């Protein structure tokens, strides 16, 4: 068997591993195994690549490859292992971005390694696609990372004449792509690279923090396509298949995620363009409205003598690592005969499924977890809606205020419960950066403080009530 055939076969094994990985990740039962199978496929493919003469023939280059992999590993593993669970979405964003950057660099390097105009036109097109999409993914993911890491505001960022400026940059890139194809000029390619980075950044700036997970999923699909383009450039079936798998599954996943938020993808991507300026000044001013703050003892009594309590967790629960304490409270209430359920918004927290993950960690029984639609049916007969560190996902503005950035997003209808209790650190708005009417509702009692402390106090209060 020739080396080329052996290589193709080994790479085929890796491809099968990737398909099985995606398949496994689609079911809770096999997800972890699926990920390991994917990692196995990756290991096999990379290990085999070291046996190819194109990789080891120049010793200096081989040393550089090994050094680069060592550097990436030394940085990547601690970063991925030490990051807090709450910071996972931005880690996915940045690891996605560097993949896009790598794909763009592969395309650029291939371009400059071939002298003059000897490249076929379709080769230049493949390279340009890789550069464009990879750079957009890199810059976009970096901005998404900065938003989630709160290095910059999570709010949509708008500026005057945003749409004309963005359109002009887009058109300039299209024109330069044509110029590159005709002239095969490296200088023009570099300008395309820079403008693509700018495009990626301005594409992401107006997208609000709450929509960022959907955006990261889309950029993930972009990187997949950039990798597939690199595969065309390098004549590598492995890269084409793996990149396309991610591109296609990522596109579908992006659609599923936006559906979970009850919004269309164009709405998420472009709604802040223009509309947000009017929307942010929306709503009556906070002045003149009073907020009722309660004590833990009062609220403990309210909970202890309720018949039905809904716990509505959000990002605050995740930050405070309060999932175990939430469970203690639920157990204390259940011991008194109170019916308790958790109302789970699909995008509560900063990534879809965030709350399920946290509550599963605290061994919350599955039958107590209610998806949004079921929870909303029960809400009208619920005595107390206990909102733990959530805000946007219970904001009635999503139903009542056309023009609000979150208008149209399905929410947990906490406003239908007889009483509402908010455990919040402060009156600060949620991640979407908008005010919440519900905090000022006469039915609402606030308990300020860290979610975990507040829950502990409530547990004590319920036990003595």
């Amino acid at each position: 068997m020739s080396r080329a055939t052996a290589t193709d076969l080994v790479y085929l094994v890796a491809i099968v591993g990737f398909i099985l990985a995606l398949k496994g990740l689609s079911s809770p039962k096999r997800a972890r195994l699926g990920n390991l199978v994917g990692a196995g496929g990756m290991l096999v493919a990379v290990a085999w690549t070291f046996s190819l003469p194109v990789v080891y023939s120049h010793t200096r280059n081989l040393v550089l490859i090994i050094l680069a992999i060592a550097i990436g590993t030394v940085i990547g593993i601690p970063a991925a292992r030490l990051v807090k669970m709450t910071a996972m979405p931005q880690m996915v964003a940045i690891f996605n971005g560097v993949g896009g950057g790598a794909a763009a660099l592969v395309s650029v390097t291939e371009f400059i390694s071939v002298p003059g105009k000897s490249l076929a036109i379709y080769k230049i097109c493949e390279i340009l696609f890789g550069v464009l999409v990879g750079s957009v993914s890199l810059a976009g993911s970096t901005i998404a990372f900065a938003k989630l890491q709160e290095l910059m505001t999570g709010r949509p960022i708008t500026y005057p004449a945003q749409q004309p400026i963005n359109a002009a940059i887009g058109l300039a890139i299209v024109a330069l792509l044509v110029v590159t194809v005709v002239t095969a000029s490296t200088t023009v390619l570099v300008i395309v690279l820079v403008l693509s980075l700018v495009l990626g950044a301005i594409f992401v700036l107006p997208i609000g923090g709450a929509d960022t997970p959907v955006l990261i999923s889309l950029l993930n699909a972009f990187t997949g396509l950039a990798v597939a383009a690199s595969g065309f450039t390098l004549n590598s079936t492995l890269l084409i298949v793996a990149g396309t798998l991610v591109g296609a599954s990522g596109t579908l996943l992006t659609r599923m995620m936006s559906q979970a938020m009850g919004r269309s993808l164009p709405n998420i991507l472009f709604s802040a363009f223009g509309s947000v300026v009017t929307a942010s000044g929306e709503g009556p001013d906070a002045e003149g409205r009073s907020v009722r703050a309660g004590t833990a003892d009062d609220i403990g009594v309210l909970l202890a003598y309720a018949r039905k309590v809904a716990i509505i967790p959000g990002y605050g629960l995740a930050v405070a690592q309060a999932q175990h304490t939430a469970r203690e409270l639920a157990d204390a209430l259940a011991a008194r005969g109170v019916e308790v359920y958790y109302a789970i918004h699909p995008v509560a927290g900063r990534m879809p499924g965030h709350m399920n993950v946290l509550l599963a960690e605290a061994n919350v029984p599955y039958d107590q977890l209610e998806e949004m639609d079921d929870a909303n049916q029960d809400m009208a007969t619920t005595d107390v809606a206990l909102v733990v560190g959530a805000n946007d996902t219970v904001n009635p503005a999503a139903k009542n205020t056309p023009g609000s950035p979150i208008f149209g997003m399905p929410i947990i209808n906490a406003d239908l419960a007889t009483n509402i209790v908010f455990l919040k650190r402060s009156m600060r708005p949620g991640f979407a950066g908008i005010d919440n009417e519900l905090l000022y509702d006469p039915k609402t009692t606030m308990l300020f403080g860290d979610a975990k402390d507040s829950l502990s106090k409530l547990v004590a209060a319920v036990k003595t009530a």
Partner: protein
Amino acid sequence: MIAADPGLMTFITVFVLAAFVGYEVVSKVPSILHTPLMSGSNAIHGIILVGTMLVLGQAHGPAQLTLGFLAVVLATLNVVGGFVVTDRMLHMFKAKPDRKPAADADARGKTDPGTGSSTGTGTGTPS
């Protein structure tokens, strides 16, 4: 120009078929797995590492060597970070009470804690 490169048509065929496979294989995903799936597929496009190795292996001159080197570093970050983060996320799912899959999910959790991350490490071990 297409006639000059019969391989191109094969690649396009592979591309289209792979797109359908990618679409079909994740057609039904419960919302709790959206994030792990996103993270897992993120790790898979780290296969660009193989491409960057091929490029750096053949690079000449400071410009190509620098770009190629940077590309390998970035791609490695994508691979190891992607798989380790995904494994950590899925680790959270291991103990699931009151549910049928709990038995084998639990058993897996006990037999291979940490192998996920060491597999991630393994990606770099050829060095």
